[in-house]
């Protein structure tokens, strides 16, 4: 016997409302593929292009606590803003991001990253300089690669000094798609 969908959803809804979840997640559809989105009471914790939750459960549980559950309500805010972004109706996100367990350097870099506006780009070296360490372009590259909340923290807007796209954790196709959506690429 399987649990009927409406009963299952009712419990997940109640669990999210109860405030007892350490993290809730759900899949969010997007033009560049399904996104795994997880949020805590502090904000957005994870966006991943790898939609297989089995690849994320242990990490979420370790970083946020073991009360991790698929709970659509917990990511409603993120879902709405992502939908608007992909429809071209939103240029800036108002979502809080849960930055627990990131180093001070990473936090500075992500803070500067978040300030690169929609439709613009910066180079790894520029971002390193803005974060107070001009020589740290390579470390900035690593930080982009490990960005836990891509799209919302727009690491797709960071490119090489010669204008090359360099790389993207979600695959270069997605970086191209995001920059095209923002009018940077044609």
């Amino acid at each position: 016997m399987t649990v009927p969908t409406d009963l299952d959803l009712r419990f997940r809804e109640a669990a999210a409302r109860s405030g007892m979840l350490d993290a809730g997640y759900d899949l969010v559809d997007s033009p560049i593929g399904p996104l795994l989105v997880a949020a805590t009471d502090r904000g957005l914790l994870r966006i991943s292009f790898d939609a297989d939750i089995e690849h994320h459960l242990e990490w979420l549980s370790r970083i946020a606590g073991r009360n991790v559950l698929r709970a659509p309500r917990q990511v409603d805010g993120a879902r709405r803003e992502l939908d608007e972004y992909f429809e071209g109706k939103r240029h800036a996100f108002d979502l809080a991001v849960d930055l627990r367990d990131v180093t001070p350097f990473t936090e500075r870099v992500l803070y500067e990253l978040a300030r690169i506006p929609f439709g613009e780009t910066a180079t790894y070296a520029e971002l390193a300089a803005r974060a107070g360490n001009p020589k740290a372009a390579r470390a900035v590259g690593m930080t982009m690669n490990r960005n836990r909340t891509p799209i919302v923290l727009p690491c797709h807007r960071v490119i090489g000094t010669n204008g090359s796209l360099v790389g993207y954790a979600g695959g270069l196709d997605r970086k191209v798609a995001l920059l095209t959506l923002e009018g940077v690429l044609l």
Partner: protein
Amino acid sequence: MSTVAIPPFETFYAEHNSEVLGLLRRKVGRDRADDAFQETFLRALRAYDRLEHGEHLRAWVLTIASRVAIDIHRRTKPTSEVPEIPHEDTRPAYEDLGELTDGLPAKERAAVVLRYGYDLTYDQIAAVLESSPDAARQAASSGVRRLRKEARP
């Protein structure tokens, strides 16, 4: 000492939800099983971050479900006798203790079986019984006292 890791709640829920629903449908009927199902897993969620090991999670959640069923029976039939926690809910290895404690009041029985049969902490037992750890300890020890008394010729 090796302990069994406690899985993320999603994994635990996915593994046991259909068995819990089946148990609740048998105990309280289809109409009331949905509410009981939600209550069971909310109680489990409340206690989940206090668990100290991942052993006997199945027995633990089935015991919570049994308690929820008992509460529902109490609410709807205040004068009727409290139903027993049936043997089919406990795992074979612990059946001895299940039978031994047959004569105990429901709360003491649950406390004794969970403490000595499943090695749960009083915190965890309190979560199942929806009472305090002190009350769980008291229920277990008065259960044991009662068993001793009965064992005497």
